[in-house]
């Protein structure tokens, strides 16, 4: 089923917001793009909803301030997500949680007891990953960015993105392995 195009384009709304400070236009943009932005940011900050909401608010303030500089060569949502990623990184850095690239000898996260059965869900496993690993894995495996795009956004080399992804995947698989298999491996 095809999604219908909105009656008013993001660019028209952004123009009304930029020229007149149109609150209705802002609310429309907010309604369209915030659910996507919030989910993305929530994964980056490791599932802390309060932090994610702070990041979303700051993202909208920065985006609205910088609206005049946006050249509409990319989708508005993509541009917004990029700002959201930077704001989230700033928050994690202030909290002392931002590490990228992670050192090769970074200890892998310990597996928490499973709430039900012998598996933990993917969201919980993602939240347990070290911040740097999690960010690269979310951008690549969930959001579909390329290593070049990730490198550009995070200010790292593409090779670093690849190696971080490799570590992140290994850590994720360990977290998601059933207890029984883990027990066999230890035996």
């Amino acid at each position, binding site marked *: 089923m095809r999604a219908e195009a909105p009656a008013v384009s993001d660019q028209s709304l952004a123009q009304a*917001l930029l020229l*007149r*400070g*149109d*609150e*209705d236009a*802002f*609310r429309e943009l*907010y*309604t369209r793009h*915030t*659910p*996507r932005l*919030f*989910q*993305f940011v*929530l994964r980056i900050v490791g599932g802390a*909803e309060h932090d*994610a*909401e702070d990041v*979303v*608010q700051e993202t*909208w*303030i920065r985006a*609205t*301030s910088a609206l005049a500089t946006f050249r509409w060569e990319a989708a508005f949502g993509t541009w917004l997500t990029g700002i959201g990623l930077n704001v989230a990184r700033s928050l994690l850095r202030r909290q002392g949680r931002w590490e990228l690239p992670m050192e090769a000898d970074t200890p892998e996260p310990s597996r928490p007891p499973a709430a039900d059965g012998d598996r933990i869900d*993917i*969201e919980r496993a993602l939240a347990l990953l070290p911040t740097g690993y999690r960010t690269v*894995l979310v951008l*690549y*495996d*969930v959001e*579909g*960015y*390329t*290593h070049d795009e990730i490198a550009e956004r995070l200010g790292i080399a593409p090779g670093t993105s*690849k190696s971080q*992804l*490799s570590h992140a*995947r*290994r850590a*994720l*698989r360990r977290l*998601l392995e059933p207890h029984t298999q883990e027990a066999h491996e230890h035996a």
Partner: protein
Amino acid sequence: MNTPDPHDDELPPALRQALRGLPRERQPGRLLEERTVRALRESGLVQAAPPRGIRRLPMAWLGGAVAASVALFASGVAVGQWMGGRTTAQVVSAVQARNDQQTALLVQQTGTAYIQALHQLAARDSAGAADPQGREVATHLFRAAAGQMVRIAPNDAVAGAVMASNPRQDTAAAHRAHQQVLWF
């Protein structure tokens, strides 16, 4: 977007698919929008919109609403005046009707008392004990009543006959009686 690379073999297909299938949208808390709008207003990036419900009304709708309000007001005034007029007329009519009833009741009560007094006067007259003064008063009042009856019903034969009978003598007798009677 990315293409398969050498690291892909590190992720089982099911896990890779599960990661791609994770939800992409999630609603934040309901207050976040208002919080964000308030922050944007404070920084001057957004102008406060007029209260909802008014700002989105088109001019034609507003004009229609004003016209409807005026029509409603005018019809209300007209209905109010009609109701007020009708009420006043009803009150006046009711008061008038009440006055008529009270007058008729008064005539009946005093008339009955007058007849009863005449009855007693006649009884005393038969016994030879009647005071001539009583007779004169009775005659005077009878003529006075006949005079009012002529005003009410000019063609009434009884009243006309009473008034036509020896008015001067009756009037003089009544005048004397009036001077001697203590009215109460």
